[in-house]
């Protein structure tokens, strides 16, 4: 059913009786042209663009749990393209452009809200660094605004500008950045893919990728063997577990990142604000809850829950810029598993095994990448060529030295 204001009004008069389930629950077929392992945002987007842009409809997404159970439903929903490395900016900007038209394209309300992303700076040298980042963005045609203290005050007057240790000197603003409703993104892509004939197989776990004579032949799943000519691994935090069944060893470690949401309060924070003297980001959802997070817990983990030091660190950082929220109650907090790459940037590439493709290394930043990640992996799987905006996101960059290290912290994934 096409969603529109008319369908909503007409259903209001029909007792809301005609709404249909948004996707099917099909039985797996014995064989598909392509299989996508992982029904998170990226896997569903890959299937959607394979169907929409490349005409592949005999394909399936296999998801071991329910749709949106992974990080796509656990993130802090920040969308932006304020990167500084040449390999990253065109990719993330492509993604932001897709976001800008996504709801019309999917005919689904993803609540994309371009409310601005403001990175605060707290010292002169940090201002210079942010100016450099803004310049790098502008050289790629992406607008950035370096705001001084008074301009920041106009946007977010409630911050602790005169904090003794971390006074706020200004900020780098990307007005086109913002937030989106994370689950709706998964559901929208799922609906779009399903309506084009893609089978979405929930509660179907990929157990073993079958490779014969250097060529992928299919995937052993919890519901039997499924034959496929091409397979894409899009399993985010669990990437290495499934990749190792095909003999792949990857520059990835999995860590847990926590997120937090407070009780709902009246509208307070108009944009996304990040703290520059640590690693903390906060925004306010449309329901009124403050949504925030900080760094990951510093040890490898597959348990999608964190520990208390991470909680304490996050709250301390919140207090450093926004003491005004010290008595707001925390409603919930949770964790998600992150596929941290050795340089902090993602990988969308072939694997050396014919017909096997990989999409991983999303670190903290994969939600914003969702549309472009699916777009570029679909392009790669359909044409065997990297999409022009993803040519730097190669697996062999660690061998050739072309790493894309935004943070400059080296091969220590928990520091990116």
């Amino acid at each position, binding site marked *: 059913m096409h969603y529109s204001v008319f369908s909503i009004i007409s259903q209001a008069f029909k007792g809301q009786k005609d709404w249909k389930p948004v996707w099917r629950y099909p039985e797996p077929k014995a064989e598909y042209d392509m299989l996508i392992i992982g029904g998170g945002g990226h896997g569903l987007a890959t299937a959607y663009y394979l169907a929409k842009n490349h005409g592949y409809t005999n394909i399936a997404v296999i998801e071991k749990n329910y749709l949106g159970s992974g990080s796509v439903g656990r993130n802090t929903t920040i969308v932006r393209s304020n990167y500084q490395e040449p390999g990253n900016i065109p990719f993330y900007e492509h993604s932001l452009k897709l976001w800008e038209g996504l709801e019309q394209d999917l005919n689904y309300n993803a609540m994309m809200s371009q409310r601005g992303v403001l990175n605060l700076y707290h010292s002169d040298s940090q201002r210079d660094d942010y100016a450099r980042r803004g310049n790098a963005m502008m050289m790629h045609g992406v607008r950035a605004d370096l705001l001084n203290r008074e301009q920041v005050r106009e946007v977010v007057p409630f911050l602790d500008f005169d904090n003794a240790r971390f006074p706020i000197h200004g900020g780098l603003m990307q007005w086109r950045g913002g937030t989106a409703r994370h689950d709706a993104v998964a559901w929208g892509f799922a609906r779009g893919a399903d309506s084009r004939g893609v089978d979405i197989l929930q509660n179907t776990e990929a157990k073993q990728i079958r490779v014969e004579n250097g060529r992928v032949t299919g995937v052993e799943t919890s519901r039997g063997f499924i034959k496929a000519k091409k397979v894409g691994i899009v399993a985010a935090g669990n990437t290495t577990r499934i990749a190792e069944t095909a003999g792949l060893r990857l520059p990835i470690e999995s860590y847990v990142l926590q997120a937090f949401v407070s009780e709902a309060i009246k509208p307070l924070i108009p944009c996304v604000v990040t703290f520059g003297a640590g690693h903390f980001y906060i925004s306010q959802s449309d329901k009124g809850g403050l949504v925030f997070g900080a760094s990951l817990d510093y040890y490898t983990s597959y348990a999608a829950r964190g520990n208390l030091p991470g909680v304490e660190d996050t709250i301390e950082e919140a207090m450093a810029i926004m003491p005004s929220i010290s008595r707001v109650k925390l409603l919930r907090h949770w964790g998600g598993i992150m596929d941290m790459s050795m340089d902090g940037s993602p990988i969308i590439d072939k694997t050396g095994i014919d017909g096997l493709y990989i999409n991983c290394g999303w670190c903290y930043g994969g939600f914003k990448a969702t549309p472009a990640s699916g777009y570029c992996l679909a392009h790669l799987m359909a044409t065997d060529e990297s999409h022009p905006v993803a040519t730097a996101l190669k697996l062999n960059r660690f*061998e050739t030295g072309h790493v894309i290290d935004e943070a400059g912290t080296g091969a220590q994934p928990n520091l990116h």
Partner: protein
Amino acid sequence: MRIPCPFCGPRDSQEFSFLGQTGLKRPDPNAPDAQKQFHDYVHIRDNKAGLTKELWLHANGCRSWIVVERNTLTHEITGSEFASPLTKEAAQ
């Protein structure tokens, strides 16, 4: 998470800093495939789901490097020992 330091006893994990998996050996730079070996040494990790052995530094404690046996699926810690036999000897 509480980590049992062989010298200090059980301590809050916040006192430690995490390095990662044990058993990585610096390759011989003169080996014919040194470039590949160094790539693996610097970038490739097991990223095991389940029991792992990993290096932690008791940075805000006795400052020893210790090997912790931990389950990455549950965060359960089942053992620890000094990373260096010399430290082990000195602590006895």
